């Protein structure tokens, strides 16, 4: 039994413990961490990033390490490791902050570079690396970023729901994950959405996949809150939502796909049919 436990311990990817900075991150390549490290959790994240913390908290933020590193050339960088409840939540906050014209680089699940700073999604972590000076050696910074990612997580897959969105008419870099209250409806949680433009009309396609029991409840509550009379929960329904306009919802066995923001959603119903097909692949 002890042998098995030790085996598990040494073969698992290194996990950042909630309250201790891991030894393996103390020195990364040529970079040595400074002794003064800052740790924030749900109670005091506000102290570090003020009101922006509400976004992170809505994505089940768990904790943050902020650590400065120096290199042998006396360059300095700051590493921020935001840990979230799961990869979906980390994805959610990462794309919240990702610009439309993101300069993507192949690190982790996805990364982009902005003003010399790295913004990296990897597993349940959202990692940010800031050079103290813009003249920091770019190759060294990138190598540091790659090593940090390899030490934190070996997950490089996006949430599977993203593969359900049809390509036709989709606008790139508009994927979003709303952890809570999609459509402004309490309990409508864990929804992926993407923006589309077909003809002159922009709108959104959204997808939620959960166990049938939870999804039944979400859809039924939405219909009830919008005073929508339905014959059956599953299948296609168009809700006249007084706040959101007409919303087309398809539902079957835990899979919810909808169209939001189109004045005549039945005209683009084919996108839902396509998404259903993709979900079965």
């Amino acid at each position, binding site marked *: 039994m002890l042998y098995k436990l030790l085996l598990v311990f040494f073969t698992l990817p290194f996990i950042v413990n909630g309250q201790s900075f891991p030894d393996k991150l103390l020195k990364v390549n040529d970079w040595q961490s400074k002794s003064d490290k*800052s740790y924030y959790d749900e*109670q005091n994240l*506000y*102290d*570090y*990033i*003020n*009101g*922006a913390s*509400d*976004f992170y908290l*809505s994505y089940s933020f768990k904790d943050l390490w902020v650590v400065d590193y120096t290199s042998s050339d006396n360059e300095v960088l700051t590493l921020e490791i935001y840990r979230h409840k799961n990869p979906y939540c980390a994805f959610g906050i990462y794309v*919240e*902050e*990702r*610009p439309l014209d993101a300069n993507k680089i192949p690190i982790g699940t996805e990364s982009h570079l902005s003003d010399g700073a790295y913004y990296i999604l990897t597993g349940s972590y959202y990692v940010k690396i800031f050079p103290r000076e813009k003249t920091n050696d770019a190759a060294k910074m990138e190598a540091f970023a790659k090593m940090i990612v390899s030490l934190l997580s070996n997950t490089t897959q996006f949430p599977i729901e993203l593969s359900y969105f049809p390509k036709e008419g989709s606008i790139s870099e508009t994927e*979003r994950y*709303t952890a*809570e*209250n*999609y*459509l*402004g*409806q*309490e309990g409508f949680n864990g929804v992926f959405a993407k923006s589309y433009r077909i003809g002159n009309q922009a709108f959104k396609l959204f997808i939620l996949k959960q166990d049938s029991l939870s999804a039944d409840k979400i859809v039924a509550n939405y219909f009830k*809150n919008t005073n929508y009379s339905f014959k059956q929960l599953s299948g296609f329904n168009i809700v006249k939502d007084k*706040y*959101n*306009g007409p919303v087309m919802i398809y539902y079957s066995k835990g899979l919810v796909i909808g169209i939001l923001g189109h004045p005549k959603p039945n005209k683009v119903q084919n996108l839902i049919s396509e998404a259903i097909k993709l979900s079965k692949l």
Partner: protein
Amino acid sequence: MTNKGIQRRDFIKLSVTGLSAATLFSSFTAFSSKSEKKSKNIIYRTLGKTGLKLPIVSMGAMRGENKNLIEAGLKLGIIHYDTAHVYQNGKNEEMLGEVLKNQKRKSYIIATKVVPEDMDRKSGELGSGATAEAFLNKLDISLQRLQLKQVDILYIHSISSRQAVLHPEMIKALKLAKEQGKTRFVGISTHQNEPEVLEAMIEAGIYDVALVAYNFKQDHRELLKATIDKAAKAGLGIVAMKTMAGGFLDKEKTKPINTIAALKWVLQDENVCTSIPGFTSFNQLEESFSVMGDLAFSEQEKRDMEFALQTTGMYCNQCGQCLGQCSKNLPINDIMRAYMYTYGYSEASKGKELLTSLNLKTDPCSGCDTCTVSCTNNFAIANRIKDVTRVINVPNEFLV
């Protein structure tokens, strides 16, 4: 925002009063001079010397990824929207700009906030990199995102030290922003060391508005309340944030807060012009709309606030450890009981009755430079004595 009602035994009947000695009078008139009902449903207050009249509930747009929420807020009568340069890496300002561009400019009041460069997160002090130029560059970006030439209120974001409030480069930046027509009014947002920040703002004399974290759960709420009163008298407009106190009474998140009651608790302080809760659902928006017109606690809200205040240490547990510590031998535990009656249960008459029976003067601590009483609950004894003994001079016909 609303939990489903916390079940507590209803052992004390609460009257409908404010919780501050400073507002004992005003809370018993339908509306004091600080509040007015412009329409049947909405209470308006004036934002200090700005002269802006705002509904008491505004909107923090920071979680408003759903533009329809903002539009619904506009329809309900919410006028004031708050955002910041850093929210969602700029997308929040962009979203707000998209929604508001279709509205008449005079129909809304918009605030944004800019974090100064080179701020030490621990001390809150600004370094040499905190220049007016860098600040104004960020403001320009914010204005572009908002599709505006001018915001109504520009805050220096997240300030926690006197040094930052009085920093010459920040004062220069705000003055220039006004001169250049980029903002009508200037202020500071703070959620740490609020009393120190407010005092410095009063001293500086150039600020118009203070956006302050303020809720029933703060350990220093009494000092903060008093400082807010002082700031309001000095002409500062007060906007409250973080009124929901995190949504839970405990770290484990097993005891939800009645957030509507918590919001009312803050707004019953008439020095607060408005608050900026962040809404993520239409239900929350509709519930807050009800607060816009009526600040009286419902029976359930009274019970929930009683429970919340008890949990957060409003109530003295009568341990008696304080007895004998006061240099004037004041009956501290009895005075604390009077405090509970007055501010915890809103039974000011009962509090006065108790204080009168103790033969206390209005300010029994006068003459003492420091308080020698150490409370096991860490209550600020001297402040509480001062607050509650004011009731002694309030005529009985004004008390419930």
